[in-house]
Structure formats: structure tokens, C-alpha cells
């Protein structure tokens, strides 16, 4: 069951470097994006928005909750996101501080 969270298009280390280097949580690679709009349709905050050239772009990456919905469903693997395990709740954070593999037990 845990394997679904681990998979991503690139290795975790290279993702780390890229997102850290760009100092952003998430971005859409313009060259890979096909403009299908799935990400804009499933993001609960409507972050990916269409741009003038028919592709999608994230204007406010700081609002991203790293839920990974867009990244794991993007058919072109155009979304670069360093997924953080866990949910946004305090009890999860508490458990993970003890041991990174713990969860809040509600998920």
C-alpha cells in the first residue's frame, strides 16, 4: 500500500534539488505541458490556470498543500513537486516527528 506514495517521475533526490533550487513547492514544466487542463480540474484550490499559449501555469505556488493530486494524475508528467508525506493535521506532524514513517492513524 505504501508504494503508491513513493513513485514519481524522477528520483527523489533530483526533485529535491530542483524544487529547492527554484525555491518553490511546485511548478509545471512548460515544455512538457500539453494543456489538457486535468490539473486545473482536480486542484482543490484551482491553482493551475491556463496561460496565453494554451498551457497551464501555477501563479501562487505558496498556496499549494502538496496533496500531489495533479502530479500523480498528469498524463504528461509535466508537474514537478516534491511530495511531502503526511496530511495537514497537527497529530500527523506530531507522530512524524517521533518517527518519519508514523501516521496520524486516521489515514
Amino acid at each position, binding site marked *: 500500500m505504501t508504494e503508491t506514495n513513493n513513485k514519481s517521475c524522477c528520483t527523489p533526490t533530483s526533485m529535491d534539488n530542483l524544487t529547492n533550487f527554484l525555491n518553490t513547492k511546485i511548478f509545471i514544466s512548460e515544455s512538457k505541458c500539453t494543456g489538457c487542463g486535468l490539473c486545473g480540474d*482536480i486542484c482543490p484550490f484551482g491553482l493551475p490556470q491556463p496561460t496565453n499559449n494554451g498551457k497551464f501555469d501555477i501563479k501562487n505556488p505558496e498556496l499549494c498543500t502538496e496533496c*500531489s493530486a495533479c502530479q500523480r494524475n498528469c498524463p504528461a508528467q509535466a508537474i514537478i513537486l516534491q511530495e511531502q508525506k503526511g496530511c495537514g*493535521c497537527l497529530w500527523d506532524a506530531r507522530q512524524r516527528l517521533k518517527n518519519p514513517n508514523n501516521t496520524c492513524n486516521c489515514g
Partner: protein
Amino acid sequence: MAVVYMKKLEEEPDTYDEKFTTLTKGINREIQEWILRKIKSGNSILEIGCGTGSLAAKMAILGNNVVAIDKNPQMIDFAMKDFPDEDNLQLLYQIGSFSDYFVTEGSKDVIVNTFMLSELRPFEQQAFLRYAWKTLKQDGRLLIGAEFVPSGFWKLPFKIRRWRFKKKIRRLKLRSTHLVRWFFNYLNPIGFKINTIKQWKHGSIKALELIKINKNQNNEPGFYQPNPRNFRNFYSQLRIYRCIFTGQTDHVPIEPGIYQSGNPTKNSPIIVTANYEFTYYKVMRDLEGIDAWVLCLDSDGINVLCAARGNNFGNAQLLEAINASGITNLTEQKTLILPQLSAGGISIPELPKKSQNFPFKVVYGPIWSKYLPEYIKDRPVRKPDYMKIAKFNIFHRIRAGITHTTFLFRKIFLIPIFALLILFMLIGRLNQIWWIGEISLNIIITNFLISILFPLSNFTRKFIYKGIFFGLMNIIILGGIGWIIHNSIIYILWHLGFYFWISYFSTMSFSGYSMATSPREIQAEYPVFRPTNLTLIVIVFVLLLIIIVFKPINFI
């Protein structure tokens, strides 16, 4: 009951049998003897989950042809070392489980399985039964020994013991086994009839002899469809309240499987959702008047969002539900409508990779189930904003406030409140017990204020700042009221400490409800939150002692 410990025992094969016998008080031995009496000799037997091979060896010595599989290599290793020292034994140990070990269909007289059901999830139990059905010859027998939930009066002591064991298991950080709850429902639809049942300990351990029946003459096992649940009656309303009151901590599963809304036909839409009881009632109520198939996958009784984030609503569960529910036999519909919030766990591009001929196209429906009717009718290519944007509006916040308040009372304040009550009785201040009531009331009011006024703190994303903001607000509002009522300096100090802390703590704990918190942010805040929280608790505790010892004027 002891079965909860099985996972622990399995780590040490050499002592497994002995310890397991102690745990079940020898009933596992009795079950083995019962099984040996039932099979006699000359049968072709498959034992699934053979463990240390103690039963398999005995069956082989009786003159049966035994293939015994277990998915734990250590166990098979141990069984091989312990191979009985007799000639012409037909006994084969293999590593494998029913989901991957291939046996020619219709080739076995008997399938034996002891104490494994509790390790299988509901869908896996159904898959296991179908595997057994296919592997057995006509009129073949399935012998099962397992822990069940007793019926009638004995259910209560069983549940209490189970609850205690579970707490222990959680402390030891072990994965617990599952409760075998609905197993008997599956037998007839899949194609078994019960021949004999033997019970131990008031039915908490049972041994079953099941006989394969060919129900529909097409030589295929059937599929199980759970009974429809009434979603409009008083009971369902009570269950909804139960979920709201215990939301933060309890898993409330219903049977996973296919449910029907209205009278769906072969072309009706398929709605996929979680098997959290609240979710089920909500979806069914919202779908009322529409013909649709509702596929509840096994998310372990957790809502869609939390399950998706926590690996309980992912590709694995979706594929399991599609295979085990037999939905492809019921409908020609080729589109699955998933909840939008499950996108954090499902990965559409990976689905065809995991299953060779994945027959469905998957789309994400609206974020709230109340828009399902509109979504099904219009099937918009692009969802309008109201169908996809997560809001944390006043109704969500009030529900979150209720859930959080009950959580605080159940998990955090229950013991302190009782301790205070007993302390007050011991020191003979019965006339001041109302004060404990006041504290409880203030906890409720604090949570109510936070849930109503939460948007006021939107100036920051940091929950620590939000907590300080609401803490200060609480001091002004509740502290002001307290000053008017009690008019005492020491008491005001208690207000400053306690009201600030309860507000600070509750706001932090609210982070999980808002949907807009990222794990990275909250994990970064936690190391700051922890020491400040502990400091505040110490301050509150000291103030409490001062109040109890010095009896401030006007308060006493």
C-alpha cells in the same frame, strides 16, 4: 481474542506454535484435531497459510496429498526444517498466498485454512472464497478455523476485550488484525453452504465446514453485493451524528461493495466513494432520485480526503474493489466517476500499468457530493469553480468545531476533569464543583468561537500566529466575562493562562480540518509549537494549584 497478537508472534517462527497455543488456551490444537477428523485420508489438500506446518504434517501423515503455502518465507523455512521423518509422504511446502499461487482449477478435495481470515480485509476475504471455490472439485470442502465476533450477549465482553487489546497493540506500534465481521454474508452469494459449525468460547472462535455449491451452473463463483442500507431513517441520522461526534479518531466502516441508488441499469453511471459510514449516507442522500451504481471501496472506514492522503484510497484499493465486487458483470458503463478529493491517492496514468486490461475510463467528479446530480446531468468538460474549489465555509467549520470539541473531551480532558472532580470531593469542596463545569463550558465556547471566527485569522498561513491571535481574542472575550462574574485578581491570572492555552492549542489542532494546510508547513511549525504548548500547560497547571490552595476571594 488472542489473534490480535498474531502479527507479533509471526516474527519468531520457532516459538510461534507454543505461544499461539497459550494465547488461544489450546483451542488451536482442538481445531487441528477437528480438521483431522473431518478429512480422514486419501484427499488432495491445499492448506493456505500453513504457518509452521504443524497441521500440514499431520494431514500428510494421515495419508493425504498436501500442498501447504504461506506467504511468510520464514515460516516456510521453519516448516521445511521440521519436515516429518516418514517415508512416502506427499507433502509440499511453498511460499505463496491465494492471490498469487496458481493451482489447477477444480483440482482439490479439501482446502484448509486456520487463523488467517482475520488478516484479510473484507474484499480479500471474498477473493479468498472465490479462489477456494475455483480450486475445489465439485462438492469439495473448505475447512476454516478463525476468530469471529460472537453474537448476542457475548458480543459485549468480546468487544471490550478487543478494544483493550487494540490499545495495547497501538502502543506497541503493531499492525492489528481485522475483525471478521461480515464473513457469513459472503458464503451463499459466492457459492458455499455451511455443513457444520463448531464453536469455542461462546462463538468467538469457530471452525466451519463449507461445501462448494454450483449455484448458477456456469462454473463460476458468484459475487457478493452488500444489502442496501436505509439512508433516510432515524437510525441513519443517528449514525451521522455518531460520525460527526467522533470524526477525528474513529474509523466507521460499512461493508465495501456495490450499492444501488434507485434502479440502475447497464448504462447508469458508476460513482466511486469511500466506505466511511458518513460518506455513504451523504452520497446516497445527494444521489436520491438518480439511478446509479455506488461502489464503496475499502478505505478502512475513513473519509475520502484523509484516506487518499494516507494510502487508504489509492490505485490498490480501487483495483481491489473493481475485481472483488464484480462490477464489470453488472454494467456496460465504461466510466468511473471518482470523488475529486481522491485524486491525492489515485493515479490515473498508473492504473492500466497495474492491471493489464483495465476496462474503465476514470474521471474526477465534483469536490462535494451535493453537486453529483448536476455533474451527472451536464457532464461538464471543465468543472465550474464551485464544483472544484475546496471551501471551509461556516457549515464545515461548525461541524469541525463539534468534532474537535468532542475530540478534546474524549482524548484530552476526560482524565483531568475526573481527576479534578475526585480531588474536589476529597478536599471537601463539593459546593465548588460548578467550577469544573465552567471550565468545560469554556472549552466548548472557545471551540465555537474559533470555528465561527476562523476566517478572521486569514491574514497569515502560520497556525502558531493564528493560535496567538485566537488566544488573545479569547482572553479578551472569556476573560472579560470571567472578570465580571468573579471579580478576582488571581482568577484573572488563571484566565490569562488557561484561555490562552486552550485557544492556542485548539487552533493548532484545527489545522487538519481547514483542508488548506500543507504537511510541510505544519511539520515545520510543530517543533516550535511543542515547547510553547508544554510551557503553557505548566503555567496552567501552576495556576490551577494556586487557585486550589489559596482559594481566591469571591471565587470560594
